[in-house]
C-alpha cells in the first residue's frame, strides 16, 4: 500500500517493541473488554469444567476439584485481534495438560471445541492446547480473574489471538475433525496466529 498522506504513526518502525506482532499496538495499562455477550453472573460455586468427546474418561471438575491440580501460571504477552497487545501479564490456574491427562485423549483426537457457560465456542487444533501452551486460569495478577475478563475461570492460549481464549470456560470437546466456533463461523481465521496476522478467513 502507498503511504497515507500525512500519516507518520506514533510508534516508529525502528524502535518498535519486538514483542509486538505485526498490526498490533501496545495497550499499556489498559485491558479492553471485548465480548459479544452479557457477562454471566457465574460464581465459583456454579462453575464447572468438563473434558469429553474423544477421551477415555470424560470428566467434570468443580471449582474445588480443579484447584487440587498442580498450580501453574502464564507470564507473558497477550494479543487481541482488534489490534491491541498487552505485555507481561500474569495468569494463575492449572495447565490444560493436567486436565487432559485425567481425561485421556484418544489417539484419533486431533481438534477441540472450547465452549463457555454462555454458549460461546471456539475451535483449536489439539496440538495448540497441549505441551504447556494452554491454561485454565482463575487469577489475574495477584487477584481473582474479573468477571468481564472471563472470571471465575477462562481458557488462555496466549500464542494465539485472544478470541481463542474462551471466557467463562465450561468445557473442551475432543474431535477427530475441525468444527468452526462462534467467531470462526463469523469470518475469523480458523487458527489465529498473531505473528502471521491470521485475523480473518483467507488471511
Amino acid at each position: 500500500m502507498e503511504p497515507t498522506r500525512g500519516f507518520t504513526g506514533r510508534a516508529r518502525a525502528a524502535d518498535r517493541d519486538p514483542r509486538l506482532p505485526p498490526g498490533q499496538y501496545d495497550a499499556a495499562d489498559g485491558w479492553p473488554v471485548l465480548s459479544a455477550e452479557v457477562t454471566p453472573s457465574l460464581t465459583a460455586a456454579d462453575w464447572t469444567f468438563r473434558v469429553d468427546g474423544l477421551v477415555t474418561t470424560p470428566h467434570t471438575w468443580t471449582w474445588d476439584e480443579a484447584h487440587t491440580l498442580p498450580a501453574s501460571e502464564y507470564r507473558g504477552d497477550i494479543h487481541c485481534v482488534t489490534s491491541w497487545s498487552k505485555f507481561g501479564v500474569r495468569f494463575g490456574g492449572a495447565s490444560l495438560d493436567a486436565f487432559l491427562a485425567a481425561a485421556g485423549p484418544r489417539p484419533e483426537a486431533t481438534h477441540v471445541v472450547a465452549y463457555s457457560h454462555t454458549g460461546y465456542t471456539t475451535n483449536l487444533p489439539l496440538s495448540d492446547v497441549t505441551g504447556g501452551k494452554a491454561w485454565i486460569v482463575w487469577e489475574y495478577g495477584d487477584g481473582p480473574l474479573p468477571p468481564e475478563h472471563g472470571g471465575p475461570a477462562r481458557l488462555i492460549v496466549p500464542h494465539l489471538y485472544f478470541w481463542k481464549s474462551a471466557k467463562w470456560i465450561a468445557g473442551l470437546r475432543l474431535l477427530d475433525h475441525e468444527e468452526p466456533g462462534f467467531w470462526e463461523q463469523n469470518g475469523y481465521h480458523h487458527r489465529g496466529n498473531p505473528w502471521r496476522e491470521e485475523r480473518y478467513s483467507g488471511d
Partner: protein
Amino acid sequence: MAGTFVPPTRFAVPGRIAVSNRAASEWQRATVVDVRRDNTAGTVSTFRLKVPGWQGHLPGQHLMLRLTAPDGYVAQRHYSIASPPEEGGEIELTLDHVPGGEVSGHLHTVARVGDVVEVRGPLSGFFAWPGDRPALLLGAGSGVVPLMSMLRHWRGAGCPVPLRLLVSARTREDLIYADEYGDETTVVLTRTQGRLSAEHLAPFLGPAQPEGGWEAYICGSNGFAEHASRLLVAGGQPVDRIRIERFG
C-alpha cells in the same frame, strides 16, 4: 456422544444473516469524499468514503481501517459503519476524536477530502440487524454509530417492525446526530439526568413489548455495556437476545 454438554444459550450468528468471508480478508482503497462535524462540541466527525469494490453491508457491521506511514509502519482500528446499506459504494464512519489517539487523531486533524485510506470488511454478522425483527437499541457516546445505521435503514427501507433507540450522552453538545432523532428515540443526558435507568427501559419491557419480543443491541464502552445489559436482564429481556458491541 454420551453426556455431551449443551450450552445454555444458542449463542451464535443469527441463522438468517449470511457473512461473506471473502470481503473480510481483502484490503480495499477508500477515498475520503466528505468530512462533517457530528456534534456541537466538535469532538465527533463523520468521514464519507467511496469504496469502489464495496460489496455491501448490514446495519450494525463494522470494518477495519488501516493507515500506512512512509516507512511501512501501519496502524489499524475497527470502526462501525454509520451509513445504511442503501448508499451503494459509499459508506460513512463516525469517529470520536480520542485525545492523543493515533488513528482517530490523524483522521480528525490531518485527513481531508481526496485522501486515500484502506478498509477491509464488512466484519461480523453477530451485531447486524437486517430489519426483520423488532429492535431495541441502547447506545452511549460513539456507541450510537452502528445503531444509527440501523435507524437510517429502518426509516429508509420502511421496515415494518418497531424500532426504539435509547441514546446516552454526557451533555447535549456531546450528543452525536442530535438533529436526526425522532419519536423513536429517548435521549438521556447523564450530566443533568443521571445514568440510563430501569425507568427509561420500563415503557418498552414487560407487557408493552411487541409480538415476539425485542432483539436488543447494546453498543458503547465496556462500562456502559455492562450497565445496560444488567438493566435489560433485570427487566426480563432474555439473555440470548441481547447482542453487545464493546468499543474496548
